[in-house]
């Protein structure tokens, strides 16, 4: 990113959408006394240099399988699309979403360590939530693509080659085969993750190449639980996928990845999805599995049932979960859990000198004078794909 004239590129961003009344653009850097509010999504600038129109296929670009060919990324930079939904509606409610660039909250979020291009959107008069949401998502992904387009034709600072074969590198040569069960939320508009631009509602577990996950096939349209959800950036830079790729053929055999829906509906819906996910893992030859979580409460039950069905299928399983002053669900088979921290714990008060994204919190109070803020509100703080460092521990 140091190679790019960021101000010039940011200045060149254009927004033209009748659903949006205005967009304010600001660039904030780690260590600055800035609080960012109402963050809807965070996206790393990426472009497919050989076919820019296919960047973020389905969600923004033309449909072409992600995960192959060359991708240019601007490492260390994130585009944060911010805004609050125009109307209060039934069902899951909008929750506060904060990134602090300094102070105690900055230790919690990976987005406190990136240079952030913050886009603050306000809705045009009379625009419905789903239309504003769609406009913000498209504009944020487009800005990420256009920022990265500045790299086309330039010499890269670094080139990384990532490879994955279904079944893993080692095959049968004695290393344990591990399958990643990646949970994606799908409940309602604004509590949804998109795969190639589509919701997973009515979806059953399916196999996906881990490189597709890293290459923009999955985008976020989920704005509940700031600490526990996965912004697009987290899929693009999924530590859990990268760690498994790095260990593939050395410490384990990364046999494959199964996409699972979180927020399955009804007890048989949850049970069926968990059973089918475990069955796919078994067919991929899994000796072990890692189950991730997206969101919370309801989806923790999906995680627990998936662990249970994996263990019943003879697959040793670890799950990654956040704590909500305790767990809302647990099965005895879940005997190896990674804690990503207690979201109810308060983070000490910090007063920013500047607030971007919106001066006032959803509860009407000034964001600069919010007092101690719960971990729950910090974007990515208790990320259950294991992206962050926070955990709760007994002393």
């Amino acid at each position: 990113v140091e190679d790019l004239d960021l101000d010039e590129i940011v200045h060149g961003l254009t927004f033209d959408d009748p659903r949006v009344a205005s967009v304010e653009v600001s660039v904030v850097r780690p260590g600055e006394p800035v609080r960012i509010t109402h963050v809807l999504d965070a996206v790393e600038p990426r472009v497919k240099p050989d076919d820019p129109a296919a960047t973020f296929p389905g969600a923004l670009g033309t449909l072409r399988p992600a995960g192959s060919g060359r991708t240019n990324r601007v490492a260390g930079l994130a585009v944060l699309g911010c805004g609050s939904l125009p109307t209060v509606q039934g069902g899951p409610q909008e929750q506060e979403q904060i990134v602090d660039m300094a102070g105690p909250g900055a230790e919690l979020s990976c987005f406190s360590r990136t240079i952030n291009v913050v886009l603050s959107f306000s809705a045009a008069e009379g625009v419905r939530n789903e239309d504003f949401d769609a406009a913000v998502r498209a504009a944020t992904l487009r800005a990420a693509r256009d920022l990265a387009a500045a790299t086309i034709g330039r010499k890269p600072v670094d080139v990384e080659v990532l490879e994955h074969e279904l079944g893993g590198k080692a095959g049968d040569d004695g290393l344990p085969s591990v399958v990643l069960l990646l949970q994606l939320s799908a409940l309602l508009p604004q509590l949804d993750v998109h795969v190639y631009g589509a919701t997973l509602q009515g979806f059953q577990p399916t196999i996906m190449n881990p490189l597709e996950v890293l290459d923009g096939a999955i985008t976020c349209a989920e704005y509940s639980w700031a600490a526990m959800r996965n912004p697009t950036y987290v899929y693009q830079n999924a530590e859990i996928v990268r760690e498994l790729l790095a260990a593939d053929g050395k410490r384990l055999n990364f046999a494959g990845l199964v996409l699972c829906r979180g927020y399955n509906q009804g007890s048989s819906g949850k049970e069926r999805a968990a059973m089918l996910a475990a069955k796919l893992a078994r067919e991929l030859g899994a000796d072990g599995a890692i189950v991730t979580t997206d969101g919370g409460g309801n989806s923790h039950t999906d995680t627990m049932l998936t662990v249970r069905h994996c263990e019943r299928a003879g697959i040793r399983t670890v799950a990654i979960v956040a704590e909500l002053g305790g767990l809302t669900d647990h099965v005895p088979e879940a005997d190896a859990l990674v804690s990503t921290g207690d979201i109810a714990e308060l983070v000490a008060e910090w007063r920013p000198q500047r607030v971007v994204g919106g001066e006032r919190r959803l509860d009407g109070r000034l964001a600069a004078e919010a007092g101690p803020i719960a971990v729950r509100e910090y974007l990515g703080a208790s990320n259950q794909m294991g992206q962050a460092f926070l955990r709760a521990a007994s002393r």
Partner: protein
Amino acid sequence: MKVVHYLNQFFAGHGAEEGAGQPPVRLEGPVGPGVAVAGLGLPIAVTLICGDNYFAEHEEKALSRLLGYLDEELPDVLLLGPSFGSGRYGYACGTLGREAARRGIPAVCGMHAGSPGIQAARDYVYVVPTTPNVAGMRDALGTMAGLALRLATGEDITTTEAGEYSLPNPRRNELAGETGAARAIELLLAKLAGNVRTELDVAVDAVPPPPPVEDLASATLALVTEAGCVPQGNPDRLASTRARTWFRYSLSGELTLSPERYQSVHGGFDVTLANEDPNRLVPLDTVRAIEREGGVGRLHDFFYTTSGSGILVAMAARFGQEIAEELKQAGVEAVLLSGT
């Protein structure tokens, strides 16, 4: 040595229900049970008081104010209650004690084992067990004062005898050296090698199923739900997520929950279908039919509702205890609890 004491409106002499809405206040010296504590050799410098309803309904504001007072006073120990078996008071004591302990102020509560404050205080607060009611005031104050005195003089208390009090075993957030992803892989490889380790040793508060109702045909049945079912327009403003309270609504003369008059404001699921027929949240139509056929003796005149979305376990435990207490007093013998 500086000791701060926390009381609710009732024990501070500000009235029972009528003072329950009182916001936090700070008074010099001991008040109510604090006077007896002072007589036991533990001087109370400041008493903090908050109405139980105020704390329950404005927890963030109440905590912020109370913690502000503690930041000014910087006491050596915080004494809370005793709150005995009280739901809201116990919850406030446990929650404030926990937040104080997180700031490095040792906290001592006194409460009954069934109090939801036990959950709220979870792992952070020294808890002296008490009787369910004020009959055990003297014993409780004696143990609490002795414990607080030792803590105020800087003693690091790490052992307990004969269940005299329970020790805090704080579970706190910290930054690990590696990401959750890297730790997950380590835990999995260890588990595959036969070495099962976990970062979260779950002691779930398991609720054993109660014995079946002996004779439902003569029993009074109540409907309770966490489905966020409320009268249309949500007149009492039940929160969709992280509810602070529960409500009771009359079913007197009601045969069905019509969509014109009821709705769900639950924040954890798609309420579209539920709102087409709120009986699927609170099955009044079916239960009325069973009542007519003599399958249940009588349906209780009220249903009880909250939203379970995003709620903390301790808060949910408090709601449950409060609702159960009211149902018991009303002679209800069976509950149909619908969850979502």
